């Protein structure tokens, strides 16, 4: 083979990896764009990894690969605002506050938990460091592309690493009787307050240096991350269950002004109005739906109707799997159960997609089927909220990452040998007393 041809082939392959060039037209589908009304016989046209047209009368280019989706449903790729797939390890037991920790340093993108999430239709996921700390480190927003490195799966690379938030927790989660961990709620809040005051001082020093490198404070990775939090560049994802703990988060938010998303919120039904009154930087709440109350004292008053309560209060509401606490493969069930207990169907679908994208600040790119957004979509055999429906295909940026008709993909949906290997750290998370829920 001559060199030119080889180079051409190589370049071609690289381009192929970078972007989907040939347009694909999904025709004849029932389309739920989430933003805008449903189309009963719609066409979705994608090219270069983006949505380029959507409607009932879309002109399909001659070179397009046309896929007849008769009888199937198309919806946006599902967004999970809180998960632990990829068997990452976050902060260790040495301190209750570790802002310098980056979960992106430990995620195994080959872990089968990621394949199972693809099988559930998940395309964008906030992977968080695990648990048992007031502040357990930096989260990372992933696109569940097929890839072998974190670079390939990161939603976006930034100067300092990868786009993500900051994981915090209160209540009993971060209490420990040993070491320098807090033993009470007031102590927990006090330690957090102290840390943010320290970060404010660090921020002031940077400001005072006014760009003069000789006047800059010594680099401190934890402080740098907390300054990003104070400046609203890194959203706090805050684990919190009880009504009083939720209110404590709101209080600390008010004191320091950071952007926050409240996670789990077992007693959201009791303080939905207070959450709503939290102001612009209280971005919203993300609910976990578990099959029964109890098991952990803080969740004994959890209600399935949290979704309905938050919707009624006008809070931007999303859902999360907290995988492995609930399984990514049937994440849609979370929205369905919220509908069972009074949330509107429309809002529940939004919660699984666009609202979650907003909670992560990624709604310009994902969360709905709108021209210009990433071509991330799920093909379903039926109603997204039916136990009988199957995720048939999952697409990310114009590439299919899951196809139920392919037996090697299918096993990640149904289970079976090899569908759940490499879950060592998942086990640790589930057995850890201070685990993440």
């Amino acid at each position, binding site marked *: 083979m001559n060199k030119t041809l080889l180079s051409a082939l190589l370049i071609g392959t690289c381009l192929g990896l970078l972007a989907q060039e040939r347009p694909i037209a999904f025709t004849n589908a029932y389309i739920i764009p989430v933003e805008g009304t449903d189309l009963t016989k719609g066409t979705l046209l994608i090219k270069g990894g983006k949505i380029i047209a959507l409607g009932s009368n879309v002109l399909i280019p001659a070179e397009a690969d046309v896929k007849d989706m008769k009888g199937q449903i198309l919806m946006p790729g599902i967004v999970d605002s809180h998960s632990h797939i990829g068997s990452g390890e976050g902060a260790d037991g040495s301190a209750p506050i570790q802002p310098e920790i980056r979960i992106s340093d430990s995620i195994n993108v080959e872990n089968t938990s990621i394949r199972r999430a693809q099988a559930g239709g998940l395309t964008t996921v906030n992977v968080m460091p695990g648990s048992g700390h007031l502040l357990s480190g930096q989260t990372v927003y992933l696109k569940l592309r097929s890839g072998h490195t974190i670079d390939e799966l990161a939603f976006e690379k930034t100067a300092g690493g990868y786009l993500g938030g900051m994981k915090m927790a209160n209540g009993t989660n971060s209490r420990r009787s040993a070491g320098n961990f807090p033993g009470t709620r007031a102590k927990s809040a006090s330690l957090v307050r102290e840390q943010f005051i320290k970060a404010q001082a660090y921020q002031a020093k940077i400001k005072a240096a006014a760009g003069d490198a000789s006047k800059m404070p010594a680099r401190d990775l934890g402080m740098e991350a907390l300054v990003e939090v104070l400046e609203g560049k890194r959203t706090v994802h805050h684990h919190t269950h009880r009504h009083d703990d939720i209110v404590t988060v709101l209080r600390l938010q008010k004191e320091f002004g950071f952007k926050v998303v409240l996670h789990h919120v077992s007693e959201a*039904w009791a303080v939905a109005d207070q959450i709503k009154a939290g102001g612009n930087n209280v971005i919203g709440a993300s609910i976990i739906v*578990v*099959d*029964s*109350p*109890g*098991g*952990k*004292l803080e*969740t*004994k008053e959890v*209600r*399935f*109707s949290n979704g*309905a309560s938050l919707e009624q209060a006008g809070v931007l509401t999303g859902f999360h799997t907290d995988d*492995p*606490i609930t*399984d990514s493969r*049937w994440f849609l*069930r979370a929205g*369905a*159960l919220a*509908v*069972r*207990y*009074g949330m509107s169907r429309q809002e529940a679908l939004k919660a699984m997609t666009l609202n979650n994208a907003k909670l992560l600040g990624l709604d310009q790119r994902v969360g709905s089927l709108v021209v210009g957004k990433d071509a991330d979509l799920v093909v379903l055999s039926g109603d997204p*909220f*039916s*136990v*009988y*429906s*199957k995720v048939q295909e999952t697409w990310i940026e114009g590439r299919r990452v899951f196809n139920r008709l392919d037996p090697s993909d299918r096993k990640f*949906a*149904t*289970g*079976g*040998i090899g*569908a*759940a*290997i490499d*879950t060592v750290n*998942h*086990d640790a998370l*589930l057995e850890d007393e201070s*685990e993440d*829920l």
Partner: protein
Amino acid sequence: MRVLLLTLFCLTLTAQDIAVRAEKLYTVSGAMITDGVIIIQKGKITAVGKASDIQVPEGMKVLRHKVAVPGLIDGHSTVGFSGLLNQPHDQDQVERSAPMQPELRAIDAYNPKDPLVRFLSNRGITTVHTGHGPGALISGQTLIAKTFGNTIDETVMVPEAMIAATLGDSIRNTEGKAPGTRSKAMAMLRSELLATQDFMKKRRVAKSGQEPDRSLRMEALIQVLRRERPLLITAQKSIDIMGALRLAKEFNIQLVLDGASDAHLLIQEIKTSGVSVIIHPLMTYPRGEMENMNLETPSLLQKAGIPFIFQSGYEAYVPKTRVVLWEAGMAAGNGLSFDQTLYAVTLGAARLLGIQGRVGSLEVGKDGDLALFTGDPFEWTTRCTGTIINGRLVSDGEALKD
């Protein structure tokens, strides 16, 4: 007078006259009845049929619902033993002082008032097989109870149902005590059953007045050896399932396989052995011993003709209980037909548990236990709108505010 009042009170508690008219009435023993009526008198079903064919007695209260099915049966749970709060004071499912304690009776520990029992009855579950859970080589006994009643006596159907045993990683002792390995666990079970056989023999041949001392432990296991009570063995991995089958054959025991997440890899072996399976909750997270679990196992068991039922299982953390209705629903969503799924969570479960004479289907003479729904019971968005136990409306089902 006081006696009379008490009698009346008991009657109202246990027996009521009530009729239910449903757009779809699933009797399970027969075909689905469109616009059906069921009449319950003194706690028992006295008539079932098409509304046009059934005369509802004058003055009888008629409840109208979309869908009615027989009260649902949870094949294996620890509800009432592993309480909602998950604090030491409400966790009675496993006693860890010794690896084998078949003498532990379930009726001595069941709390019919634990909030999770109510949580289940609000979702149409009327009967639970519950008791000592997985986690000890022989953890103790199980019972079968209705999900309504203030005391064990009011609620229990079968006080001594099965003896619960476990094989696999969860019973491994890492502190130098037995059992520390799989082979040791099997050897211990074998020795215990041999000792029981020996005890039986001694009792049989002993002259009057020279019988061996009573042994609660032996007495419990004698029932297993006489096939009067099944041995429930929780085993997930292939090696442990095969161990359980081997043991059952060696001692001619009536085995019920519990969990069995590798069952889809051993269909032929299980079929040949003739045992029944109480399949693990399908929504368990796949990990550890259960890493091979497969949502399509129920449909594979069905195709092979292996009797199986569903369970909520034991949960150590969150959620503190699963809901057998929802676990069964996952099978309906993964290859098992609606009718097969409904059968497994009603009449199939009753048969496997040996209570088919009283519950499991809507037939004249059986207990008036019904679960009422807004639609297909297995759908995620369908709600339970009422639960009837012994003819008494014990719950209005799931509240929107739940």
